[in-house]
């Protein structure tokens, strides 16, 4: 590895985040000065929702008038969005190797580079989250814990029993460890793939398959733990074993829409020789499948909690059925599921750019709404509250990650040059349409 370049990248990433933070803080400070009443009004309803009806958070409860917290929550929402693309790309690679798939070979580099955004960019983007969390600006339980694993949160029994995981030490070490593991795995997969470009040896495919074999288990565990720490533990009292799958399902959905858009775009450029209509159709089918899978998972979570009606679980949704959050919930129900489901039932709509083009943007919007729905009610329990931080954080992260992806994509061959299944992928059951057979033979 080229170390000077690697440090330059990290410095560049940190500088980007720093400059943006500073610029946004200035903008918002000005806004703050102009409208002090509105901000003060938010502070009045800033108590934390609590499952047990008493203030278990002590001094650590979110205060929505705190500008750093406003930034922190917006940044976390945007971060969870871009992390979706990275995590789901990892899954795309894993499943490609596990199933010895042929159809996905031409789009593999899209996934490989996207998964590799985890390092250094994902790491750089994670650091502010760890910093904000340790400073007590994100997770309400953080100020109640210290750097030891022993239960110190006697004030909150529900936190004390989980203190092995919910303390400053575990939070930091687990997240850095998980991100490190993902970075290593993504780097390995791309490394194998690029090595095969040169010699075409079967050993690289075998290595990738071996890694995918145990990697899929490590992946599912790490995704769950990471999402529990980053997002679910904003309300640490909540129980949901399917929360990790829920995040993963929405992530795959958005990522497949993104791949669809990128593939349609690169079909006219770098990927022109290898993308056939059936590849587009396959991506559309996967997107459709995850429309259903996400709905299935989210409905199951809601349904089980609703039916069981246990206060430790229901408070999470009770909070999200107050104020405008209820409308956001319905937006997710209809916009995240019914609209794309009914629209994409037909084969031809999955192939039509007129339908899928707007659908890609819609999927991004819906996934962002979903992330907002998970993160923001903790800080704004009365309802949706959009600050300037939201577009700024989202725009900055997407711009940096998009640029980094494009740079990586342009730096390497656009598809695996000597993948053993490439030939098969280039035929992909494609039959000349009527009248073209003569030209074909």
């Amino acid at each position: 590895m080229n170390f000077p370049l690697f440090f330059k990248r990290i410095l560049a990433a940190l500088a980007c985040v720093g400059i943006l933070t500073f610029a946004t803080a200035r903008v918002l400070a000005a806004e703050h000065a102009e409208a002090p009443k509105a901000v003060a009004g938010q502070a009045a309803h800033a108590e934390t929702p609590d499952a047990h009806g008493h203030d278990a958070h002590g001094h650590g409860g979110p205060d929505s008038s705190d500008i750093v917290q406003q930034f922190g929550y917006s940044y976390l929402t945007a971060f969870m969005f871009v992390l979706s693309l990275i995590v789901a790309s990892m899954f795309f690679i894993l499943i490609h190797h596990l199933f010895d798939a042929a159809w996905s070979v031409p789009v593999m580099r899209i996934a490989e580079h996207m998964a590799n955004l985890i390092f250094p960019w994902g790491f750089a983007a994670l650091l502010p989250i760890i910093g904000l969390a340790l400073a007590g600006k994100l997770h309400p339980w953080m100020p109640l814990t210290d750097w030891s694993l022993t239960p110190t949160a006697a004030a909150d029994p529900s936190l004390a029993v989980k203190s092995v995981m919910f303390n400053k030490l575990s939070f930091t070490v687990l997240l850095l460890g998980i991100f490190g593991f993902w970075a290593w795995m993504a780097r390995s997969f791309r490394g194998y793939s690029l090595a095969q470009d040169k010699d075409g040896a079967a050993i690289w495919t075998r290595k990738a398959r071996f890694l995918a074999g145990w990697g899929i288990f490590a992946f599912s565990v790490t995704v769950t733990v990471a999402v529990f720490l980053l997002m679910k533990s904003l309300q640490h009292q909540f129980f949901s074993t399917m929360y990790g799958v829920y995040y993963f399902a929405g992530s795959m959905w958005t990522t497949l829409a993104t791949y669809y858009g990128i593939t349609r775009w690169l079909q006219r450029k770098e990927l022109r020789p290898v993308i056939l209509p059936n590849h587009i159709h396959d991506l559309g089918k996967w997107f459709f499948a995850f429309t259903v899978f996400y709905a299935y998972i989210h409905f199951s979570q809601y349904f089980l909690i609703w039916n069981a009606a246990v206060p430790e679980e229901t408070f999470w949704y009770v909070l999200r059925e107050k104020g405008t959050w209820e409308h956001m919930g319905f937006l997710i129900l209809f916009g995240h599921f019914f609209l794309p489901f009914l629209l994409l039932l037909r084969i031809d709509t999955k192939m039509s750019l007129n339908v899928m083009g707007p659908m890609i943007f819609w999927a991004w919007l819906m996934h962002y709404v979903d992330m907002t729905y998970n993160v923001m009610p903790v800080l704004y329990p009365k309802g949706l509250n959009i600050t300037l931080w939201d577009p700024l954080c989202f725009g900055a992260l997407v711009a940096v990650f998009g640029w980094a992806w494009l740079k990586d994509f342009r730096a390497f061959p656009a598809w695996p040059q000597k993948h053993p299944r490439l030939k098969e992928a280039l035929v992909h059951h494609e039959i000349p349409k009527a009248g073209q057979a003569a030209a074909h033979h």
Partner: protein
Amino acid sequence: MSAKPLGLLAQFETAADIMNAALAVRDAGFKKWDVFTPFPIHGMDDAMALPNSKVGYFTFAGGLTGFFTGMSMIWFMNKFDYPLVVGGKPLFTPLFAFPVSYELTILLSAFGTLFGLALLNRLPKLHNPLFASERFKRATNDKFFVFVETADPKFSETETRALLEKLGASAIEEIQDTKD
């Protein structure tokens, strides 16, 4: 027993041959013809220029029926006909009616698919004139067949036979209508 010619049955030896034959017959403009293979061949739909199957509409109609049957059944039973409080929940909400509606959606979608398929294929059909051919029995084993009907406006005894021969048919047989 009338012996009306129904069409020409051409036998091919490999999947590649039948694919080429299907493409050529399609491009020659035939409409009333079919292909028989021992196993599904990817891309044969396109090679035969078959439009999208209409079975999907039956599936969708079945699914919708199932979903609304489930919803209205539970509404009728729990709220209308015999109001029943379970676990302090409302008498009716789509939430707890959903699993049943969902199962019925799947069940009636499957029925819609099955019966739609049978209807569109005019099944069950106990007899087919092709069964009279000894050679055709190997369509379920190791041979590939194209059958072009005389009812096709493009059909001509000599030209169609010549076309099939040119495509490499290993045998061509005239099929008679064996009904009554």
